[in-house]
């Protein structure tokens, strides 16, 4: 009886190609599954920062009581103000100075300030500087 032997080469090639297809297909399933899992994750809730509002207001009150707020605000000395707030603020900060009509006069923002995670102080009024009446409103924003 004559036995017909098949050549191993075509079967081996087919098996190798089949493994490549299997691996590619498995990777596609993995990545699709990961993408679906990532899309189904709920978005992170925003971090509340109610303590920063009180912090900012207390900081402005204290700085004014110590006489170190008005000089920086009225001379627009942002460098001096930054040197003070770098020590006293918890992280990033932004100072906004307004006229009594709420026109923004000038602002200074620290590099680490994160506007999306910030809280603002109560508007803090300044009556003037060195005996000259010149009302301004200061708002301090702090971020974690």
């Amino acid at each position, binding site marked *: 009886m004559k036995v017909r032997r098949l050549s191993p080469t075509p079967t081996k090639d087919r098996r*190798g190609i089949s*493994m*490549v297809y299997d*691996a590619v297909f*498995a*990777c596609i399933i*993995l*990545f699709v599954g*990961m993408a679906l*899992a*990532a899309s189904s*994750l*709920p978005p*992170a*809730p925003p*971090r*509340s920062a109610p*303590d*920063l509002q*009180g*912090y900012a207001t*207390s*900081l402005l*009150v*204290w700085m004014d*009581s*110590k*006489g*170190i707020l008005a*000089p920086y605000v009225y001379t627009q000395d942002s460098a001096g103000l930054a040197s*003070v707030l770098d*020590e*006293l603020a*918890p992280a990033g900060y932004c100072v906004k100075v307004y006229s009594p009509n709420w026109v923004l006069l000038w602002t200074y923002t620290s590099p680490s300030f994160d506007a999306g995670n910030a809280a603002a102080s109560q508007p803090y009024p300044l009556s003037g500087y060195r005996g000259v009446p010149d009302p301004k409103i200061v708002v301090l924003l*702090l971020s*974690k």
Partner: protein
Amino acid sequence: MLVMSAFTIALSIVYFGGAGLYASSINAQLMPASDSAASIVASTIAIQNGNSSQAWSSWVPSADPSAYGLLQGTGVYINATCFTVNNGQVTVLWSRATPTSVTGAAGRADRFIVLDDGTAVRLEVLVR
């Protein structure tokens, strides 16, 4: 062999990427709770010492979570610094902190407390 290696690498990337994504998502979900825990600790310290400069000067920060009603194993880091102003310059009177900091993403609370002698305390609390 090459196919299996590539598949193993891809599987590893997906596995560790997925685990990292899941961990960061859970951390983000728990962050408001950690912030609240840190706020509780900060408020507890602020209430205990009030605005008395004497109470604050003798105060020693404790990293024991049970002292603030938190579960054992909770990491607590407290850092307090007292400031005053001399000749228009902000100077540090004293600074105290718990020995070990909290690593990784942690809840945070800050307080700025004006004391009865005109100085002020910056209180930072991290809870993980």
